[in-house]
Every structure is written in C-alpha cells, then in structure tokens.
C-alpha cells in the first residue's frame, strides 16, 4: 500500500474527536473521505499531513511509519494560503525555491505547467486579482510542486459554485490521469466524492468514525457524462443510505 493510516484517534480536552480511523490509498488511485461537518475531517487531514500528532494509531508511507512527521506528503489546506504579496507564478514556485532552485530556474520550469492549469494569463497577477477557480488551480499546482508521492486535498473546491466545480472536477481528472497522481480528498460533497474517486470512505458520528466504504466504477470505464448516468445515481443512493439519508 502506498499510503495508509491505522486506528487513528485524536482527543481534545479528553473527548475523542475521531476514533479508530483506517484508510488506504493505493498507488495512482483517488480516494475520498466523505462526511458532514463536525466529524473531524480536518483533524484527520492534519494528522495525515503530519502537522498534527494523533493520540493513537499510525500513518504509513510505503510501510514506513511517518506519524506526526511533516514533509512526507504534498497537501493543500482548505484555505488556499496563496501569499498576497507574491505573484501567482511566484506563489506556485515556492516549494521549488525552498527546495533550493534558483528563482529563474523555478519560473522557467513552472512556466511549462501554467497553460495546462489555465494560469498562463495570470502568472504575473497577484492573488487578489484572480478568480476563486484560478486561485484553487494555482494552489493545486503549488501542491504538485511539493513533489511528494501522495497528495492530500482538504475540500479543494468547496469555495466554488457548482458549475465551476464541475469544470474543475473534469479538469482535475484529466490532470490526475496524465500526471499519475495518488490523491486523497477530504470532502463534504457527495457528488464530488463520486466524481473524483475510485473509493469513498464515509466518516460519520461524534467522535468521527469510518462507517462504510464504497468501491466505485473505475474512472477509466466511466462515460463522459458520468455525473448524469445510472451508475452515478446508484452510487449516490448507496452513499445516502450509509449516511442515514436513504428512503
């Protein structure tokens, strides 16, 4: 297994926030952790990213124990964290610069990726001058440049309107395919989880616990308008049932 966590638990002031979370992310797959607000999604995210230490359990990357250690996975927090004083391009290349590349080198390297991310025209603008969708794409490109084997995304598209979101999903799927990404999503959006993932974990309750997992139709065998298809509706129905929202 590329990336996994076993029996993750976290307590705040003596009360459990999440309990016994087990997740698996195979190589080049896309997995979602789906759940309503208040079930500890971001708590799990921070633990997986290594910026928070769990009170129990372990996080593993290719079997190696990386619990509580930052710097092993690429991640993008809910807030895009683009720096207002850096241009879009200079925000994107930050991981490369910190990694020791020269500014010129990094800019040239990143320049080749800008068109694919729809950012060619705004490379030299400041974050406040671009749209929400562009900000998310810029933050995503910065995340890719962290260049770790796993990408964690915490509700990356939740600030976008539904139509822009569908565009972004399609775009993301093509990028993920092309770049062979292994991605773990945190989301509260059922449609998003189904659209983007091969496997969906459902997080429920307080303390948050994984109550179900669903294998979805592989991304390769999906039709173009998958989100309006019968397999999509069937998956959504199962998930709604698992969330206690079924008929």
């Amino acid at each position, binding site marked *: 297994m590329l990336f996994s966590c076993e029996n993750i638990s976290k307590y705040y002031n003596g009360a459990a926030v999440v309990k016994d979370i087990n997740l698996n992310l195979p190589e080049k797959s896309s997995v979602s952790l789906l759940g309503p607000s208040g079930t500890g999604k971001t708590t799990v995210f921070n633990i997986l*990213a*290594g*910026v928070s230490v769990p009170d129990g359990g372990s996080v593993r990357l290719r079997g190696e124990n990386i619990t509580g250690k*930052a*710097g092993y*996975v690429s*991640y993008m*927090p809910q*807030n895009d*964290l683009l*720096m*207002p*004083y*850096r*241009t879009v391009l200079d925000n994107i290349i*930050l*991981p490369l*610069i*910190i*990694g020791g590349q020269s500014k010129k080198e990094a800019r040239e390297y990143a320049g080749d990726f800008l068109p694919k991310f729809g950012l060619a025209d705004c490379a030299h603008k*400041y974050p*406040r001058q671009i749209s929400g969708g562009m900000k998310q794409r810029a933050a995503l490109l910065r995340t890719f440049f*962290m260049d770790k084997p796993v990408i964690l995304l915490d509700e990356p598209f939740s600030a976008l309107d539904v139509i822009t979101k569908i565009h972004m999903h399609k775009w993301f799927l093509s990028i993920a395919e092309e770049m062979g990404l292994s991605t773990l999503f945190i989301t509260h959006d059922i449609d998003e989880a189904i659209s983007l993932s091969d496997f969906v974990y459902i997080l429920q309750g307080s303390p948050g616990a994984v109550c179900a997992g669903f294998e979805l139709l592989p991304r390769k065998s999906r039709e173009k308008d998958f989100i309006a298809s019968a397999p999509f509706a069937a998956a959504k129905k199962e998930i709604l049932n698992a969330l206690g929202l079924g008929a």
Partner: protein
Amino acid sequence: MKKNAQSIIPDKQRLAPGLLIAALIALWQLVSVSGLVPAFMLPSPLAVVKALRADISLLGRDLLVTLSEAIIGLVLAIVAAFIIAIIMDSNALLNRAVFPLLLFTQTVPAIAIAPLLVLWMGYGIAPKVALIFLTCFFPVTVGLIGAFAQTDKEAVQLLRSMGASQWQIYAYLKLPGAMPAFFAGLRIAASYSIVGAVIAEWLGGNAGLGVYMTRVRKSYSFDKMFAVILLTAALSLALIKLVVFIQKKSLPWQEED
C-alpha cells in the same frame, strides 16, 4: 480601484479641506490687520511668509541639519526594530522579558530625557540621533512584533512541510507579511522623528530648526517663530508622504483603498 473611488467623491468634497484652510488663513490675516491682537504677538500670514523668505538660506541649512539627524535616527531605529522584533518573535521567553522594558522606554517623555542625553553626549549630533532613535524604534518594533505574531500558523506549517528553514519562514512568510504593519509604524515614527530632532536641538547645538527656534524666540521674533513652526510641520508632512510613496512603490500587491 482607487480611480473609481476617487471619481465617486464629488469635487466639492475634495476641495473642502483646501477651502477650509484658505478661509482660516483669511480669518487670521483679518484678525492681525484689524489690530485685535498686537502684531508682534500674532504676526499676519503675510508677515510670516515674508520672514520665511528673508531667512530662507539660513532656514534651508537648518532644515538640512534637522532632516539628516531625523533620517540617521530613523534608519538606526528601523535596523534595531527588525533585529529586536525577530529576536523577540523567535524566543517567547525573551519576548515576555523584554516587552515591559520596551513599553517603559515609551512612557518616559522625550522632553525629560533630552537634557540627560545632551549632558551625556554633548552638543553634537549624537544626543539628537539618540533621542530620535528612542522615540522612533518603538512604533516600528511593536508593529513588526504584532505582525509576526499574527502570521498564519497553517502557512507556517505548510512552509515547514515544504522543508523551509526558520530563516526561509522569515524570508518568504513573516517579513513580507509584516510589511504593511511595518510601514504603518514607520509613518508614525517619521512624524516623531522631526519632533524628536527639534526637541533635542532646543537644548543646545549649532544648527537645526530647533536651534533656530530657540534663537528667534529669545529675540521675540514672532514672525520668524511662526515661519519655522510652519517649516517643521511641512517637513514632518513631507517625510510621512515619502514613507507612503515608498510603501506604494515597494508593495504593489496591496489593495488600494
């Protein structure tokens, strides 16, 4: 954005401050000419302008002296502010220990320590620069410390995950993020600097606007007194404008308001 905002403000409103000042000057002229107040006590605006023109070469030299003292004091204050703020930010214990002392330096009135500084350092430029330094470094330091403390913790974590060193976190996150607060502090410091220079010059020296002020006061030249006061105010204003100009040029990303 600024253009839009400005075009919304009617011309009437933009003219208002200028008109009010013009009206007040006219009133002042009227009061002096009418003889309500003796001319030697309240010289007319015209007399002040005349005095300013008559002494312009002398005042120009004094202005340069005061300005150079202010700039030297400010630059030293800025350098010290960055060093102190970074040290205090990176060490919580030191922060707790030093902050009350910082605050204390600000509760001592400049006018009270100025004579001491002159006694210690003589009549040269040193006590002036020292007083300016003491009054100016505080607003800049406090601005920087506050901004450092407000740095987004998630952003720090993200940079750490990218492998950033402590130094890189300052270079890419804390320092650029603190620039608006730095300039806000610097604007205040800039206005303090001229006042500080003048106060220090009152107590002795060979040149400077404060020295000139003391001299004309002793000879009851009220017109010259007013002239130098105007010049001092103009100098403070010019220095603040310069800081604002530098801020706009060096922080192009800032939203104009």
